[in-house]
Each structure stands twice: as structure tokens, then as C-alpha cells.
């Protein structure tokens, strides 16, 4: 119980950061390739607090939207803006975990250390943080194992540990459990929950309805590159506002 209190306290502290870069505002964003509007007219605000699950069928533009938010892609039109005096440092205050983890060809520990080195964290702090996140993600025993020799689930946990080490204010997750078995999926969901408890804002895509129900506070539903609705989770699953979302929930949506 004490541990839970500590985590909750840490969460409050992180959320109360005076120099927060949240909310993230997405204004009339479109992404066009070869004349195809893959993302179109998206208006969305991610305020501090809830976990947002971006839901939608394959090809809806979920991954694209995350990459646009994270700054890996530039929108063809519209704007993605972080707030506050520290908005310029937004790059260092956010992290992303991909569907297929990309790990460097070095030990698990060195992978976490590399990310901290890029952030110019001092050596002794890097050691401490690395030990901490490897322990929290259950990877302490494989710290010296070459990352590429870890199992799929361990690799994704390591990608999460690396993201966690950066103590991001915002974490984007692009279908992080799509390739994982149920046990590894549960482990990943638990780690994401712990990061959330420490005050990290979670935005995650999935096409797994069960996972969305387990994890969502709010749901952003995408269809054919358009945002159909952003709704509180309990309301979304009982009474979605759009016909497309209702059809998707019934498993009848065609694209």
C-alpha cells in the first residue's frame, strides 16, 4: 500500500510540473502523399491526465497520427503545437515505443544507457536510472544479454524501459503489443500503467478492442484518416457517437 501511495504521489508531482509542455494541440492537420489524404482535418487536444487510446481499423491512419504528434513526420498542412515556456524542449520530454522494437546491437543495459547519453545525463545518474528501470520492467536478470537475443516480449519491455528512463511527460505507443503473446501483452500493459501512475501522459494506438477497454480513459476513433469522435471510454463502448465507431465495435466496419 505504501508503494502504491509513493507512486501516486510521484504521479501527482509529475502532473503538477509547473513547466509542463501539455496540452498538445493538433490543429487541422493533414498528411498527403501522392495526392492521397492519408490524414485529413484532424483537430485534437491532449491535455494532462487521461490515457487516450487511438482506435480504428487497419489503414485508418493511427500510426501516422502518432508520428505526426511525435514529430517524426511533418504535417502537409495544419499544426502540432506543444504549450508553455518549455515547448522548445518538447523533443526531450516525449518518447515513443514502436510496434517492432528497434534495439541497438549491444546489451540491454547499454541500450538504456545510450538513450540517456543522448539526453546528456551524467554518468552516475545514468547508472542509477538504468538499474532502476531494468528492475521495474523485470529485466534486471538479462541486463548484460545482447538485446537482439532477448525474446520478443523482453525486447518490447526493454523498449519501454528505455522510454521510461527518459521520464517523458508524454509517451506515444504504436500498437506495442501487436506481435506479443497474452502474457507479454499483460506485462507491457502493466508497465504502461506504472508509467502512467508516475505521471506520464499515455497516447496509444491499438486495434484490439479488449485492450482498449482495459486501458482507455478516452477513445479517439479514426476512420479513413479522419477523426470521427473523441469520447470518454465508458461512454464510447456503450454509446459511440458515430455510426462508423458503432459498426467497428460490432465488427462490421468495412474499409
Amino acid at each position, binding site marked *: 500500500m505504501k508503494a502504491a501511495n509513493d507512486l501516486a504521489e510521484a504521479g501527482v508531482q509529475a502532473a503538477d510540473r509547473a513547466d509542463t509542455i501539455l496540452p498538445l494541440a493538433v490543429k487541422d492537420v493533414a498528411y498527403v502523399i501522392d495526392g492521397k489524404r492519408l490524414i485529413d482535418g484532424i483537430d485534437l487536444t491532449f491535455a494532462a491526465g487521461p490515457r487516450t487510446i487511438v482506435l480504428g481499423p487497419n489503414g485508418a491512419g493511427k500510426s501516422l497520427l502518432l*508520428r505526426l504528434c*511525435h514529430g*517524426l513526420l511533418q504535417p502537409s498542412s495544419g499544426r502540432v503545437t506543444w504549450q508553455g515556456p518549455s515547448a522548445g524542449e518538447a*523533443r*526531450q520530454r516525449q*518518447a*515513443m515505443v*514502436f510496434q517492432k522494437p*528497434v534495439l*541497438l*546491437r*549491444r546489451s540491454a543495459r547499454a541500450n538504456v544507457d*545510450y*538513450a540517456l547519453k*543522448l*539526453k546528456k545525463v551524467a554518468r552516475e545518474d545514468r547508472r542509477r536510472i538504468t538499474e532502476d528501470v531494468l528492475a521495474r520492467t523485470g529485466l534486471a536478470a538479462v541486463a548484460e544479454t*545482447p538485446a*537482439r*537475443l532477448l525474446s520478443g516480449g523482453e525486447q518490447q519491455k526493454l523498449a519501454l524501459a*528505455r522510454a521510461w528512463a*527518459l521520464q517523458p511527460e508524454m509517451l506515444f505507443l504504436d500498437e506495442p503489443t501487436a506481435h506479443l503473446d497474452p502474457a507479454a501483452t499483460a506485462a507491457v500493459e502493466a508497465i504502461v500503467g506504472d508509467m502512467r501512475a508516475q505521471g506520464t501522459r499515455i497516447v496509444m494506438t491499438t486495434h484490439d478492442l479488449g485492450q482498449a477497454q482495459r486501458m482507455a480513459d478516452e477513445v479517439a476513433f479514426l476512420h479513413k484518416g479522419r477523426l470521427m469522435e473523441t469520447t470518454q471510454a465508458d461512454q464510447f463502448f456503450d454509446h459511440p457517437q458515430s455510426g462508423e465507431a458503432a459498426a467497428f465495435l460490432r465488427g462490421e466496419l468495412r474499409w
Partner: protein
Amino acid sequence: METFSTAMTMAVGLLAGFDADLMEIIGLSLRVSLSAVLMAALIGLPLGAALALYRFPGRGLVMVGLDALMGLPPVVVGLVVYLVLSRSGPFGVMGLLFTPTAMIMAQTLLVIPIVAALTRQVVEDLWAEYSEQLRSLGAGPGRALPAMLWDARFTLTTAVLAGFGRASAEVGAVMIVGGNIDHVTRVMTTTIALETSKGDLALALALGLVLIALSLSVNGAAHALRRHAARGFA
């Protein structure tokens, strides 16, 4: 056929007896080619990786040029280095022509395009896989470059071995800038050319056997590295 078997017997004899002249020639060959490959790797690895990671005007041209230079005839490189180092050339005062240093310079120039072009290809393929993650972690091309070279280390070793193969096998460049002077600039390939034209096949054949053995070991090492890499370490 009799001359061949006689020459072969003598060649084996020279090798088995660690003939002093033979050892001197092999030693100089290895010194020249290994030095050249070391220099070429120091220049070619970062150069190739930079070409893979940075975007700049004229990049396509540089890449085509580099690929073309891979097939550069050694005699042409030899000629260029000769002109630069000759008494009337820009670096003539240094008196480097017909020294092992000149041979190392020529072979370095010959190997740089091979190492750089292969590195460019390898790192570019790897970057396709890594770029989103590294950019997400805040690494631009400059910060990513050492990590990319390190992660491609097994494949890049084979690129360097290919460079060594080229250096140790070429005759044209070292002949022109070294001059094939006995006990000074005589290496395996130039000796083979000279001794064969003189009709003295034993020494030529002995050196030929050494070169074949060298080529086999280089390719064996490359093969072993690739297998090691395939087991997940690279």
C-alpha cells in the same frame, strides 16, 4: 610440364625453408597493404556512413562517383600518385617516390572507394530500420553515426576485408610508385610479374601460393564473421 613440377618443388622448398628473400618480400607486402587498409578504413568508414546519413546537394553524384571509383584501374591510381610525388610534382620535395610510403599512399587511394561505397550501402540499409527510433531518442545524423558504424561492425569488417583483398592483389599501382626495387619496394605481386617475365618460376610460384592462401584466409574470416553475425549479435 616438367618445368612446372620442378618449379613447384622449388617453390615448396622456399616456403618450407622460410627463405630470407621470400620472407622479406611477404613482410613488406603485408606491411604496405595492412597500413593502406588501416588508413583507408579510418577515412572510408566515416566517409561512407556520413554519405548514408546526411542529405546534401550533389549527394547522388558523389555516390555514383564513389561506386565508379571502386573499379578504378590500379595503374591509373599509380600514375596519379606518381605524378604527384615525382620530382616535378607538388609533393616532389618530400622524396617519397619509390618508397614503401608511396606504395601505402597509392593503395590507400585504391581502397578508400571500396570501403566507403560498401559502408554507405550497409549503413543506409541499417538506417532505414533505425532512423525513426534514433530520431525519436533525439539523435541527429552526427550523433547516430558512431552508433551506426558500431551496429554494422560485422558487415563492415567484411567491407574492410574486401579492401585488403584488393590491396594485396593489385600490382599496377605499387609497380609504378614503388618501382619494384630489390630489398626496398619489392612486394609479392611485383615480384611475381618480374620473375615470371625472367622465366624464374620458383619464386613466382611460391609467392603465388602465399597470395592464394592469403585470399582463402581473408574470405574464410569474412564467412565466419557473417555466420557469427547471423546468430543475433549483429
